[in-house]
């Protein structure tokens, strides 16, 4: 899944959907959270 075209809000919603606790999705945290989503999708 390619997250780069998703908004920060959509990323945050996906993190909630996969029950990944997280802080704000901002420029400096987005890459880490996208990685966590990839891991959740793979598992």
């Amino acid at each position: 899944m390619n997250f780069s075209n998703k908004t920060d809000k959509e990323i945050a919603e996906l993190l909630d959907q996969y029950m990944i606790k997280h802080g704000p999705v901002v420029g400096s945290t987005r890459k880490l959270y996208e990685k966590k989503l990839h891991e959740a999708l793979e598992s």
Partner: protein
Amino acid sequence: TSQKHKEFVAEPMGEKAVMALAGIGEVLGKRLEEKGFDKAYVVLGQFLVLKKDEDFFREWLKDTCGANAKQQFD
């Protein structure tokens, strides 16, 4: 600075809610909370990551919760 800011800086920030910040009332606080900025220290973190650049920070505040010039200044 406002009375609210004086109270805020009078003690360690700790786990204070975002609404404890001067200029951040109910409406702006809710919007910030929705985006994950529920505590004052998270907003501080964003300010530091923006390298304490006031213009960037004001713009970020405006984009994130619609803070107007006065609220940004506070």
